């Protein structure tokens, strides 16, 4: 831990010296302040990781140390989702038998894994992803803590990753802006490489577009809706970020960023001192509306675009902007807040959910409008598709076409992702057949319901 902490302090001092010697501009000063904030957060995180790991017995520590040298060697350095299955199997094989009896020991085990990796950012992200994966598959309760608490721990690790990544972007932005000023405004060389901002349309999406047109050969409304969905999604080659153009426009909108900032502060408060407010039915939605001055379209737009895609906008859009020296403090903050809002909305929604009398799942209500609740945990599906519905409605689509557009897209997506769901669930020893189908169908429903709500909200706002 000392090494990691020491390295980070040295990094900060180094960054400060470089900027001072270069004669920092106002924008860079702001960036430097952000870098200091991230650094401070990461240092705090290291301390907490050490505390969390402290409860683990020596035997388990030894097992984890061996894992990091053996089966989980890349845990410290490789956070690609493609490794997740391998990681899962190693954890299950070595740790499950030892930790199944202990309450909360998994938390300590993930913390110990991070410690053993020298608090590497990849180890944070892998720990968070492992908890996420368990949650997606209704296994988070087996971690030995309540599900909502498991999500808080997940978010703790994700925040470590997001802070680290944001700090990297600060360095990149400062480097790019200095290069640009030194070269009389010439674009930096790195920007010429393919990234989110320079990518063309996703080629694979052409097939779906053509299929949509063929299936709607007799229905002009359906054809136009499919075309509109494809345009609004703005799928880009090599990217998993959707709504790209909307996202860039949103980052230029002071009112939207102000709203996101206010939402982030509320989410923090609900996670801590104002937790008891989560007991209020649909209380989150009511507060979101207050913060947006009653503008439902803003709530859906900001959360649907910036807080429905994990940290991908931070990674893809943030990196592309920083390479060009175009990442401002406001944009970086928004991308970082959006990433964490995705996770916190989910964690708070889970904690606030009602226990139904039939004991079948929970009823999510907190961030949804009063007339809506669901047993599907995927709040980001609702908001993300709410934005799609909004955009379709603004193009003139009625409820029927909005429903058709969102449902068609969701069916194609769920069908394609069955290829991922089955194998990964089998690897976890979970039902790889019936439940993925049932879950996919429920997701199609929540997508459609979100899109219809978003469409109506934007239609009303436009009138």
């Amino acid at each position, binding site marked *: 831990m000392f090494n990691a902490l020491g390295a980070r302090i040295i990094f900060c001092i180094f960054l400060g010296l470089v900027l001072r010697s270069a004669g920092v501009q106002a924008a860079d000063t702001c960036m430097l302040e952000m870098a200091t904030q991230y650094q401070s957060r990461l240092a705090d995180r290291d301390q907490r990781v050490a505390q969390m790991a402290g409860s683990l017995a020596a035997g388990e520590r030894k097992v984890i140390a061996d894992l990091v040298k053996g089966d989980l060697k890349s845990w410290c350095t490789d956070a*690609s989702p*493609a*490794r997740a*299955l*391998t990681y899962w*199997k190693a954890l299950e094989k070595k740790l499950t038998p030892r930790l199944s009896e202990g309450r909360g020991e998994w938390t300590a085990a993930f913390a110990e894994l991070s410690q053993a990796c020298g608090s590497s950012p990849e180890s944070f992200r892998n720990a968070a992803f492992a908890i996420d994966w368990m949650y997606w*598959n*209704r296994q988070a*309760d*087996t971690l030995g803590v*309540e*599900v*909502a608490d498991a999500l808080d721990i997940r978010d703790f690790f994700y925040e470590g990753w997001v802070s680290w990544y944001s700090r990297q972007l600060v360095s990149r932005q400062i480097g790019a802006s200095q290069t640009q000023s030194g070269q009389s405004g010439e674009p930096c060389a790195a920007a010429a490489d393919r990234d989110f901002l320079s990518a063309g349309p996703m080629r694979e999406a052409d097939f779906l577009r053509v299929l949509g047109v063929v299936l709607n050969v007799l229905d002009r409304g359906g054809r136009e809706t499919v075309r509109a969905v494809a345009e609004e999604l703005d799928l880009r080659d090599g990217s998993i970020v959707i709504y790209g153009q909307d996202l860039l426009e949103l980052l230029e909108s002071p009112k939207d960023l102000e709203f996101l900032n206010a939402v982030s502060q509320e989410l923090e408060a609900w996670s801590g001192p104002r*937790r*008891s*407010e*989560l*007991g*209020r039915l649909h209380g989150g939605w009511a507060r979101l509306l207050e913060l947006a001055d009653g503008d439902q379209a803003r709530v859906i737009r900001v959360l649907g675009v910036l807080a429905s895609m994990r940290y991908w906008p931070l990674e893809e859009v943030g990196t592309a902007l920083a390479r060009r020296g175009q990442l401002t403090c406001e944009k970086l903050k928004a991308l970082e807040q959006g990433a964490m809002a995705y996770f916190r909305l989910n964690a708070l929604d889970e*904690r*606030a959910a009602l*226990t*139904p009398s039939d*004991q*079948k*799942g*929970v009823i999510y209500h907190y961030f949804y409008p009063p007339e809506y609740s669901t*047993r599907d945990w995927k709040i980001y599906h609702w908001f993300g598709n709410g934005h799609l519905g909004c955009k379709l409605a603004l193009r003139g689509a009625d409820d029927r076409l909005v429903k058709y557009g969102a449902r068609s897209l969701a069916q194609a997506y769920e*069908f394609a992702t*069955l*290829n991922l769901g*089955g*194998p990964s*669930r*089998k*690897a976890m*020893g*979970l*039902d*790889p*057949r*019936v*439940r993925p*189908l*049932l*879950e*996919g*169908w*429920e997701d199609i429903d929540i997508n459609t319901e979100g899109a219809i709500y978003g469409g109506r909200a934007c239609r009303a706002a436009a009138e």
Partner: protein
Amino acid sequence: MSRSLKLVLCWMFLAGVVAATPVLADERTDSLHEGYQAEAGVRADRLKEGAIQPQGIVALTGDFALVPIPGGGRLNGTHLELELSSDLTGGASGVRRAQVALLNWSHLRVLNLEHNRDENTLLAVEALGVRVPFVLAGDYLAAGNYSIGHAGFGLGYQWQEGVQARQKSSVLGQQPDFHAGSVELVCRLDHQRAVTDRLALRSYQEASYLALMGADGGFEGRDRLRLEGGVSLHYDLTERAPYRLVKRTHPATGEVSTIRVDDEGMRLRWKLLDVRGQVDLTDDLDRRTAGVIVTSGIGGEF
């Protein structure tokens, strides 16, 4: 569960029973439950000439994770199946049916090889099969009850063995082997109803149309329109409980409550009784027109 859903499920089970009565399912095409199974029983086929052909059968099926994934891990869904049969008089016996499918998911089938003696199929290769799923009833949190449909197609090749048959001259003669490209259209409904936490009733109905286009000396087309159905009763023998109780604390009041979460692991199930059947409305491929199969078995499955 809503009253209307119960009515729909009851109706579908009834339909499954009715459909199963006159006929017999040839394939164990339940791709919704992955695992390993052994079963034994009897089957009776009605032949075109009116005779009934009874057989005893023993079948073994298994789903394995064999296909490697780039980056680590293996894909599930490689399906193996072997069915041995013997006529009940102690006469001919041997492999009646064998199947190896590289991938046999519920929505996708890739490189599915099959041999079926009773259908005169020396080798059938389904290169690609696509099934679009649709859920009629059921949800993730109570997956013991569902109705799931699939509609799709398969593309492949078949090698049909030439058999002794009456020619146009009414003289009995040997037909040549038939090599053909195949297209199959399928529509299937699967249902499950949890009678108790451990006892489940399953049924299915399937309609399929198989068209073969090939040559046995000249260009020829053959086809088969088949209806299938079945109903079975499964008892969960697994020692651990079928569900977990998950604790939750209310964020405002501190009140503690619990919800039930199904245990999704592989479970040992005793198939108490499985009755399946099929009827071929049109069939140029073999001598059978209908049949019934009754089996019992045991297996570990999801």
